[in-house]
């Protein structure tokens, strides 16, 4: 009998090695979007706007922003839209399933910098996921801010994420929630129109307000233009940018946006610092 070949000592997990985490619960947000809560093993403190790399066994890895409450320990919450093989596999996970986690990564929304001012949060589609922690943070530190506005757009009423929560927030006195959809059947009582148009219903003094915007790039361009028309200074607009992401730690080069690596210098970038890139094609 041949002696077993001694295996090399396991390497310390490097920045590219995911750590398995169990799915505590799943919630279907819409026909293609699921929220997963992962157990404490994967739980590290995070700041609103940061993301994890989630690995579905055998399928691959995808950058998914944290969508949970940064102030409540115990679980890591991710809201995932099934748009490719990896995210489809992640969305198929059941309670008790296991997912690989690396992170959290990235520069967060500057929630501190917005203190003492009006906070205008504009979310389009699944862009609401990385902004939900901002709402949790603002509500937990409500006296740090003046008025807080959450403007959310989606494709149809069925695509709206966190509907019950949005309804609860709409009922609050200390938070203005405006929701709109691009198209709706006649029975829909909410707004129909694009997210940047919601700014018509928001009366903020541009000099005393900070805007956080996340959504498809085209939608963010419209938001920046509308904010500009209302006199919002460029340095008070923060955008969450998106590019292909592979390593999340600044090695692989994929997520470059001009001189920024979105994985470590972003995804949240201040508009005045990326203005010339933002309007350029194929950057």
């Amino acid at each position, binding site marked *: 009998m041949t002696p077993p070949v001694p295996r090399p000592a396991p390497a310390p997990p490097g920045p590219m090695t995911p750590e398995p985490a169990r799915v505590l619960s799943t919630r279907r947000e819409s026909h293609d979007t699921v929220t997963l809560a992962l157990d404490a093993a994967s739980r590290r403190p995070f700041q609103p706007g940061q993301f994890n790399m989630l690995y579905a066994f055998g399928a691959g890895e*995808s950058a998914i922003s944290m969508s949970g409450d940064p102030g409540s320990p115990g679980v890591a919450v991710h809201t995932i839209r099934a748009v490719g093989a990896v995210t489809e596999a992640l969305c198929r996970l059941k309670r008790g399933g296991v997912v690989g986690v690396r992170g959290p990564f990235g520069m967060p929304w500057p929630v501190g910098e917005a203190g003492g001012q009006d906070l205008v949060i504009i979310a389009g589609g699944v862009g609401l996921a990385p902004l939900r922690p901002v709402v949790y943070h603002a509500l937990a530190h409500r006296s740090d801010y003046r008025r807080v506005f959450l403007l959310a757009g989606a*494709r149809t009423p069925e695509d709206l994420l966190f509907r019950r929560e949005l309804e609860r927030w709409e009922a609050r006195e200390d938070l203005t929630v405006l929701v709109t959809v*691009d198209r709706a*059947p006649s029975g829909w009582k909410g707004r*129909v129109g694009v997210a940047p148009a919601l700014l018509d219903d928001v009366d903020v003094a541009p000099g005393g307000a900070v805007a956080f915007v996340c959504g498809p790039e*085209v*939608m963010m361009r419209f938001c920046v233009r509308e904010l500009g028309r209302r006199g919002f200074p460029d340095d008070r607009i923060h955008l969450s940018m998106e590019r292909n992401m592979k390593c999340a730690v600044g090695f692989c080069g994929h997520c470059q946006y001009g001189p920024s690596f979105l994985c470590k210098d972003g995804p949240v970038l201040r508009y005045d610092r990326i203005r010339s890139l933002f309007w350029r094609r194929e950057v």
Partner: protein
Amino acid sequence: MNEAELLRKHPFTRGLPDALVQRLAPLARRARFPEGAVIFREGGAADALFLVVSGRVALEQHVPGKGALQLENLSGGDLLGLSWLFPGGRWTLDARAVEETEALALDAGALKAQLDADAALGFAVSQHVIQQLYRRLERARLQRLDVYRGEG
């Protein structure tokens, strides 16, 4: 607030000299629409310009097999109903109050006569209409891009 005061406060008259606003005031009557009320229907005679004061109005198109689809919302400060600008003057959409809505209805025939008679008034109103319509066009373009489809 009476009709004249509401007219004065509406963005439609922003920047207009008082004398011109006063000339429009007799054309305006207040209109209230309870939630769900139909303000006008596609094909009906387009006989008024509505200046929405408060509430929200859905512009809808009926699609066979799909029912009524909401295309756009209008709310306080917006203009509703410009089909009378065109020959024939028929509404091209349904307008329905999604919430209780208040508006000023300006008689289209009389308004047209005023605009034709006074170049300064006509120009000022045209400017306002163009700006509002262009903004709505920009939004319609963004809507048409369907940006949330396939985005992850």
